[in-house]
């Protein structure tokens, strides 16, 4: 690529500069090649304002059929790689066909952009936002420049946030009751709860709480479900007796969670579960899974 890049070096450089680039919060974003770059963070309904600078290589002129900038929200399903589904597409024409001889700056603005979905990098799916500048040319390929940015959408505190309480068991063998104080957690939240042992007839070795992410992509026959265990947190060591209650306190901040996505444009969903696992001395696992809702709370300044 390098020598090709050298050989077919684009005749000009294109850069996209955000108007509030200095002050806007930057967040890390993992690129396709595995590198992490810092990109600006936006949320829905924000104005995305900036300018595009095109600077032809010294002494060259660039002939073009027009310059445009697009704001794209794309979903890429990996089983259908290379095929982007744009759920948002806004275009601003920057220039009419002509020639460029020197550095030229084009301001642009997308006001109150509807960006309903958050940036997401999953196992089988990716949702991303880009600003794409295209310099259309005849006979030769267009000059294209992409700028990623990240969208996070914040949710207010839920008005109803019931606890999760449930009694489960295997008859005459194990009865437990567990309680998590909430069913909805924000990303830096703490899961607090208690596990009551009502009947213990098996020799328990330990107990853990797992956080699992269930990513479901596609639809119908083409549904792919991928489950990842993001956290394994030991709650108890040793065998409890009847009547014991074991506290639960799990901080979510160390884990890379995203909010729950119920249905993203009918393409995919991401859900979170708490999985309570009891392991007996023969390493048999007894578990009960409960869905929790994860949301993004506006960080308090």
């Amino acid at each position, binding site marked *: 690529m390098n020598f090709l890049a050298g050989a077919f070096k684009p005749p000009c450089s294109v850069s996209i500069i955000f108007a509030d680039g200095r002050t806007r919060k930057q967040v890390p974003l993992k690129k396709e090649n595995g590198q992490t770059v810092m990109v600006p963070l936006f949320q829905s309904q924000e104005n995305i304002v900036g300018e595009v600078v095109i600077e032809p290589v010294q002494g060259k002129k660039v002939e073009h059929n027009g310059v445009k900038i697009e704001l794209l929200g794309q979903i890429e399903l990996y089983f259908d790689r290379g095929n982007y589904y744009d759920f948002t597409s806004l275009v601003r024409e920057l220039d009419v066909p002509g020639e460029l001889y020197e550095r030229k700056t084009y301001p642009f603005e997308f006001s109150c952009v509807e960006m309903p979905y958050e940036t997401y990098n999953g196992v089988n799916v990716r949702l991303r936002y880009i600003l794409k500048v295209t310099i259309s040319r005849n006979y030769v390929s267009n000059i294209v420049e992409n700028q990623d940015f990240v969208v996070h959408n914040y949710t207010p505190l839920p008005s109803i946030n019931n606890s999760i309480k449930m009694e489960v068991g295997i008859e005459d063998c194990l009865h437990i009751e567990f309680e998590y104080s909430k069913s909805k957690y924000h990303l830096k939240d703490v899961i607090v709860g208690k596990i009551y042992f009502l009947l213990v007839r098996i020799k328990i070795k330990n107990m853990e709480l797992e956080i699992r992410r269930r990513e479901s992509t596609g639809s119908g026959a083409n549904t792919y479900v991928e489950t990842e265990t993001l956290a394994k947190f*030991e*709650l*108890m*060591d*040793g*065998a409890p*007796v009847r009547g014991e*209650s*074991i506290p639960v306190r799990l901080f979510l901040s160390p884990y890379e969670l995203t909010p729950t996505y119920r249905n993203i444009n009918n393409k995919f969903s991401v859900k979170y579960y708490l999985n309570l696992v009891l392991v007996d001395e023969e390493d048999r696992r007894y578990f009960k899974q409960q869905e929790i809702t994860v949301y993004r709370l506006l960080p308090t300044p």
Partner: protein
Amino acid sequence: MIADGVENEEKWLAAGIAGLQQNAFYMHRALDSNNLRDALKYSAQMLSELRTSKLSPHKYYELYMRAFDELRKLEMFFKEEARRGCSIIDLYELVQHAGNILPRLYLLCTVGSVYIKSKEAPAKDVLKDLVEMCRGIQHPVRGLFLRSYLSQVSRDKLPDIGSEYEGDADTVVDAVEFVLQNFTEMNKLWVRMQHQGPAREKEKREKERSELRDLVGKNLHVLSQIEGVDLDMYKDTVLPRVLEQVVNCKDEIAQFYLMDCIIQVFPDEYHLQTLEILLGACPQLQPSVDIKTVLSRLMERLSNYAASSAEVLPEFLQVEAFSKLNNAIGKVIEAQVDMPIFGAVTLYSSLLTFTLHVHPDRLDYADQVLGACVKKLSSKGKLDDSKATKQIVALLSAPLEKYNDIVTALKLSNYPRVMEYLDLETNKIMATVIIQSIMKNNTHISTADKVEALFELMTGLIKDLDGAEEEVDEDDFKDEQNSVARLIQMLYNDDQEEMFQIICTVKKHIMTGGPRRLPFTVPPLVFSSLKLVRRLQGSQDQEENPFADESSTSPKKIFQLLNQTIEALLIVPAPELALRLYLQCAEAANDCDLEPVAYEFFTQAYILYEEEVSDSKAQVTALHLIIGTLQRMHVFGVENRDTLTHKATGYSAKLLKKPDQCRAVYSCAHLFWVDDQDNMKDGERVLICLKRALRIANAAQQMSNAARGNTGSVSLFVEILNKYLYFYEKGNPQITVAAIQSLIELITTEMQSDNSASDPAADAFLASTLRYLQFQKQKGGAIGEKYEAIKV
């Protein structure tokens, strides 16, 4: 297999230590470079070594201690971090990100300790959080050590009264609550240990559990150290909560250890004020728990407390300590049907010691205890359990030791009833103990009732008990009986009437003693009685006895009693002893001017002499006694005296050996010449006796000559010479100078004759006799003149 196990354990321990040290090394490096993230990572890894299940508690402790030391360094680091401005709250959260629970909780406790110190949050909240979170460790050994760690790091940070952590929100109540909760959880874990693992390793597990008990007990110690735990709080909160846990855990080892722990760590006055609560728990313990030891220790502590200062005694009264203890013991014994009798007796013994210390004035309490003991024993019959017997001896000895006075013990009506349950051997030992106590303390036992009671106690020594086919060592028997004899001498009352009653009582008892004991017991009784007679005599001399009615004690009555007493010796038979006693009585009767009585005694003595004393040596001794006694009698009229002296001289002449005859006869001479009685000076008969003695001495010499070829010693003659001199000096007109001189001559001739065997003793005797003569001559005066007449 087992050796293998030990070896493996060593290996595991070594591996654990190695892993721990390696991670500790990285942790130190992180600490040195102030790298918090790495410090947490490596410390968590280091603590992961404590997650092992392969080590016995003992080895696990070793590993724990190493981790403990490392955690101290980490704590220092946390403190510095906090000083550098790192938010301790963030730190508190950060350590909770660790995935494994055990390292997480160790780190949490460590940070928690710094958190309290920083005072950024109320101590009580942090403590409460820590003690709650520790519930996550349900493995007994790991849980116990973790909680022990918590207890260790928090003990100097409790919001106690006067502590720097005390505040508006933090009170001592929170401190107590925290320790209590930790204690409860630790105890649960500890008790649960017994159910873990296969049944065949039960013993090993019990041992391991015992090794861990101090971890649990330490909490009680911490509680006792909290300044703010005053009596009210102890009574209302601490004790009920601890006891609740103790009772509910239903575990033998734990209940015993913890009860003991409670008793040992909390102050005496608390125990005293909460006796009811503490004791209330006892009957609820498992039947297999060794409550007797627990209660004994409690009572021992309280006894010592009572002994420590007189000021505390009112407290004991105020709380009615005795009745509470008594009730509790009753209930415990009732509840624990299987308790060996040994246990019950031990309990009573402790209770008795307690009451003696605390309520020395309340004999009724002591008696109650004994009564309860009797009740318990009555269901079992005689004891054959040596441990129980030992305890009973201790039980019975306690009042003696305390009061140093058997009289007090005699007031305890149940005392003899307890003794009834002892086997014979022990009964005797106990009786001996009692006597020794009396001897040692010189106790006066001064009423017949007490004497009666005392003898009841000592039945074992006084008479053969049923089925007493025991082999008794002769020496032991003598010792026993001698001590009884000494005891009889100790019984005394100034009041003669009462003294007589005492004597009657003693007599009644010793008469049951049988032939083996009578020779030991009769003489002291006789002498004791004679003493009384003399006292009566003395008081009669001073005043006309105002109580001279039928019922009052008179010498006559005593003599009647003595007569019966001595008669008892006849069945033994012990004629010589009886004879001596008769003579003693006769002499006493003489002093009382009771001629018939004296005569009767003499008659008895004579009869004995004639019928029972057959051994010639004994006869000689007896006869000399008779003569000696008779000589001193002045009560007899002429007739009686004649009869008796006549008999005595008769007996003298009938002795077997000539020298004996001779000596008896010249002794009889004294019967006719009583120096201080003018009507008793019959010189003639004196002379007759002496002459007769001379004759016998002669005959003896001749017999000896015939039988052995020499005339034997002249000592008989020298003895007779002495008698002559005596009567001469006393003025017997029948003894003439001529007779004396011829006797001296006879002796000197005899001594020079070839036939006589030389006898240095006789020579010396003669020499000193002659020297006496010389001496008297030189005295001058009437005596000198008298002796001057004798020419040697």
